[in-house]
């Protein structure tokens, strides 16, 4: 082995703490990148894999009715792969006395041979009778639903029956039950017959053989199918094409991925600055040795190659450590997200490209980052290198200025010296500050985003001044309903609303997906809309207000635009008068109650209500129970009862994924940022060991030296903290808004987290004390002569 290589190895081993810190810096950077790219790669691959494995419907047609004969003929159409009817109805499962949970019941022709939107049987058996059903696996986190148990299920308007849970299935095409607040059940067509359920329009699901992810092909194929069905006198009520191959939670995933990417990049940049700082520290300590090596014949290239080899070895070892850890953490995180979004990681491998990228980041990036400081240090002349190292005459803060400042502020000489020392090496100070500011800004940003998220979510719920929203499967007499509600002693207020499903009709385009139409009383007090543009409803029956989700989905619709909606089979044109922000909602159109004049079947009727309870939140459960009892007694055809408190809980759970990731990122940043602080502060002390010894030689005692170094540490720490607070504002504003745009298609209520700012200040104070005290203590432990001969 060449002596220079032996020097490298022994240098690494001789200063174990320094080597450990450099290694840790690279490990942290490589770990962060490895974890995030692993999670990114695994989640991205598996989400679409899971979804595509369900063979999602290419398009859906809702028809008035269809005979088996026509259905069989449609199956023979060219390019049609499968057709299945999948009727959907809402029911309520009574999981315990007066405790109801809504359930989407999917009526399937043959539960054992599902070919479109498939599910996977996890336990139990496929229902053998009409009184058995399958339940989606995430339901047991929402309600205490057990395999083999019997539960009463009410289908509004069609009565109640007892159903046995015969099997548990995994349906990755559905959002988790506990998030959506409803169960997913799968029942046979025989069940619908036995309940005498009528009036449900058959939903025909189609898949095509070729180009199933190409919208024009799907539209063409759907037109052909519609033409065929219409030739058989089948009335098409609604059509639907979901974005092909895109999971319903793709936007959540995209936003999580965005945050992962951004924080990954920031962690990487931070790690790079940390590496630069530490390499500069190493090179500063090696100055004299570099001079000697140059004096005995080594050129700049040779010296550079020696130190680059050290960095490469660090990178290599760091990669060996960081990659498996990063992979495990990334996989753990991917599993966590997968469980949140109801899909499974069938493939727990990462692609070769990602692996190569991770190795390159761990090994090559440190070399690239370290090259400039190493090359610059290697270029030092022999004379400069062998001259007095550790004593620098340059003072940046003008003496006269600093003297004036000192006398004004009544600073001691020690403090003045500390201030001068801080500003003495501007380049080093800038680099130190960049590292610390970056770490601090990202840390505070993570807190700001969390706070902003929380505030934005809270604002959503403060606009809802009710406790319960109730939906009925059909309109009931409004006057009777109100009189009945008036008799409830625990109700402090209520509003009867209207509710319908609609599709948007655009000439020469297929009908839109279903959206909600909410019919609002003119003087609503229980709902305070957050108007983003235009104005709230004025009572004009031809005017509507849309929510931001609608506007994001249909960007062609602006204020003043006319939109055609098909409601109850009838097309009506409305003018858009305003847009409100409404998080955690689908595309919704709000219309004034005066529109009911044009809906004869709803005149004098209501099918939805908002109810506010008396007292505080602690009574909600008890009052809900009494409300359910009232619904039972009155036999109202209630299809859904949403408790706002439970809904809010679920929304918060939606955000758990994000906040947990932000917590993880902040923890990582505490380590990286703190490490950066410790090393950079440490370097400043180590570089001046001789100077400190000179001070001691001329009579400065250890206490004064501690005071000197601590003041310097605090100055740098506090400067970086103040800058980090400033920098964190645009960083968190951009990241938070970008994240929110992807996730919620709207902007964030930006808020600054004072907790984050104070926590970072505390970290800075603690770490700068530790960072300065350790090397200062070591310096003070040295004898003056040792310090003066320090190389």
């Amino acid at each position, binding site marked *: 082995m060449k002596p220079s290589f032996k020097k490298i190895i022994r240098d690494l081993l001789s200063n174990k703490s320094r080597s450990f810190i450099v290694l840790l810096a690279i490990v942290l950077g490589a770990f962060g990148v490895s974890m995030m790219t692993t999670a990114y790669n695994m989640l991205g691959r598996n989400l679409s894999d899971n979804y595509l494995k369900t063979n999602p419907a290419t398009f859906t047609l809702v028809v008035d009715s269809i005979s088996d004969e026509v259905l069989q003929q449609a199956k023979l159409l060219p390019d049609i792969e499968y057709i299945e009817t999948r009727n959907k109805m809402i029911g309520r499962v009574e999981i315990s006395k007066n405790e109801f949970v809504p359930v989407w019941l999917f009526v399937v022709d043959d539960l054992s041979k599902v070919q479109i939107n498939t599910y996977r049987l996890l336990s139990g058996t496929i229902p053998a009778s009409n009184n058995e059903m399958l339940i989606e696996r995430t339901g047991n986190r929402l309600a205490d639903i057990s395999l083999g148990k019997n539960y009463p299920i009410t289908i509004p308007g069609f009565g109640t029956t007892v159903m046995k849970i015969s099997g548990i299935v995994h349906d990755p095409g559905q959002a988790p039950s506990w998030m959506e607040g409803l169960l997913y059940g799968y029942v046979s067509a025989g069940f619908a017959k036995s309940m005498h359920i009528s009036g449900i329009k058959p939903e025909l699901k189609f898949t095509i053989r070729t180009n199933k992810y190409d919208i024009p092909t799907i539209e063409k194929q759907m037109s052909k199918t519609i033409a065929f069905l219409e030739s058989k006198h089948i009335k098409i009520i609604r059509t639907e094409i979901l974005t092909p191959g895109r999971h319903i939670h793709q936007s959540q995933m995209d936003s999580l991925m965005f945050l992962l990417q951004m924080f990954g990049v920031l962690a990487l940049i931070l790690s790079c600055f940390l590496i630069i700082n530490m390499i500069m520290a190493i090179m500063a300590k090696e100055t004299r040795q570099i001079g*000697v090596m140059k004096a005995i014949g080594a050129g700049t290239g040779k010296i550079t190659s020696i130190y680059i080899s050290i960095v490469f070895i660090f990178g290599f070892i760091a990669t060996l450590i960081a990659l498996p850890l990063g992979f495990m953490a990334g996989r753990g995180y991917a599993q966590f997200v997968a469980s949140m979004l109801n899909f499974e990681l069938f493939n727990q491998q990462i692609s070769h490209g990602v692996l190569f990228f991770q190795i390159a980041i761990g090994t090559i990036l440190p070399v690239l980052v370290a090259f400039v400081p190493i090359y610059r240090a290697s270029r030092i002349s*022999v004379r400069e290198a062998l001259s007095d190292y550790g004593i620098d005459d340059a003072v940046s803060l003008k003496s006269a200025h600093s003297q004036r400042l000192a006398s004004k502020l009544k600073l001691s000489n020690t403090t003045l010296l500390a201030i001068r020392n801080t500003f003495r090496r501007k380049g080093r100070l800038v680099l130190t500050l960049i590292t610390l500011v970056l770490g601090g800004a990202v840390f505070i940003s993570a807190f700001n985003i969390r706070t902003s998220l929380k505030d934005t979510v809270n604002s959503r719920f403060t606009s809802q001044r009710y406790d319960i929203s109730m939906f009925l499967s059909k309109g009931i007499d409004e006057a009777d309903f109100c009189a009945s509600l008036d008799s409830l002693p625990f109700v402090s207020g209520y509003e009867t609303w209207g509710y319908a499903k609609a599709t948007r009709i655009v000439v020469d385009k297929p009908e839109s997906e279903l959206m909600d139409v909410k019919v609002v009383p003119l003087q609503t007090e229980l709902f305070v809309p957050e108007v983003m543009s235009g104005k709230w409803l004025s009572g004009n029956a031809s005017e509507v207000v849309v929510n931001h989700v609608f506007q994001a989905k249909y960007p062609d619709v602006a204020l003043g635009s006319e939109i055609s909606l098909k409601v109850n089979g009838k097309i009506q044109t409305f003018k858009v008068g305003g847009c409100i922000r409404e998080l955690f909602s689908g595309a919704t159109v709000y219309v004034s109650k005066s529109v009911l004049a044009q809906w004869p079947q709803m005149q004098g009727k209501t099918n939805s209500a908002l109810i506010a309870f008396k007292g505080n939140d602690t009574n909600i459960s008890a009052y809900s129970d009494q409300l359910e009892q009232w619904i039972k007694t009155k036999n109202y055809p209630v299809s859904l009862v949403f408790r706002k408190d439970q809904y809010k809980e679920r929304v918060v759970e939606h955000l758990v994924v994000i906040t947990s990731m932000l917590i993880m990122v902040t923890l990582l940043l505490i380590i990286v940022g703190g490490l950066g602080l410790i090393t950079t502060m440490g370097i400043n002390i180590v570089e001046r060991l001789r100077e400190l010894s000179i001070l001691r030689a001329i009579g400065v005692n250890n206490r004064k030296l501690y005071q000197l170094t601590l003041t310097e540490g605090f100055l740098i720490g506090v400067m970086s903290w103040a800058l980090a607070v400033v920098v964190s504002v645009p960083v968190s504003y951009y990241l938070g808004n970008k994240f929110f745009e992807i996730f919620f298609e709207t902007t964030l209520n930006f808020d600054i987290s004072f907790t984050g700012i104070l926590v970072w200040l505390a970290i800075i104070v603690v770490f700068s004390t530790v960072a300065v005290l350790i090397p200062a203590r070591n310096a003070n432990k040295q004898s003056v002569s040792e310090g003066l001969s320090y190389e």
Partner: protein
Amino acid sequence: MSTFIEVKNLTKVFIGSDKRFTALNGVSFSIEKGELAVITGKSGCGKSTLLNMLSGIDQPSEGEVMIEHVPIHKFKGSQLAEWRGKNLGIVFQFFQLMPTLTVLENVMLPMEFTNSIVRSQQKTRAMELLGRMNIDALANKFPASISGGEKQRVAIARALANNPNFIIADEPTGNLDSANTASIHQLFNSLSEEGKTIVYVTHEKDTALRYSRKLEMVDGKISNQ
């Protein structure tokens, strides 16, 4: 004898923030091949600056430095390093050994830098040099575990690693006791007898008296050749 070192009108000016300092002021001299010349003078007289010019560690503001007729004042960074590695051995006052390399490895290091000795023979060559310095038994020890005199012998062995014709010694006995100092002088004498040209810098008058060729420096000039 032929001229080995020829210095003509050598001037070195250091420019500080508010003043100029002339460390060498038109110095001219020559040294023959195989000569052992001692440069003496008080602290700040320009000895070290002159040594830096002769070793290519620093570049002159004006004038010429010819070593074996090679104009080293015209060389730049890596050219100078390569020249030093092959043609010059330097012995420092504070030894300047690599602390994480053994004695043997320290001696082998210049050979690696210049590739002037076949790799398979580097160890043998280094052991020969250590043997000549009577420290071959210390080959596997680290600098921290040997005495000052031993360190300086290692430094001399390292200076001879690439068999240079020119050796510069900067206060090589400044940190040694009298016994070790005498021994080092002996070594330099024998090297000179072998034909090596040696420039020896010291501020000790006693040392200067040991050698016939003396260059005394005062205020950046040679006052006595």
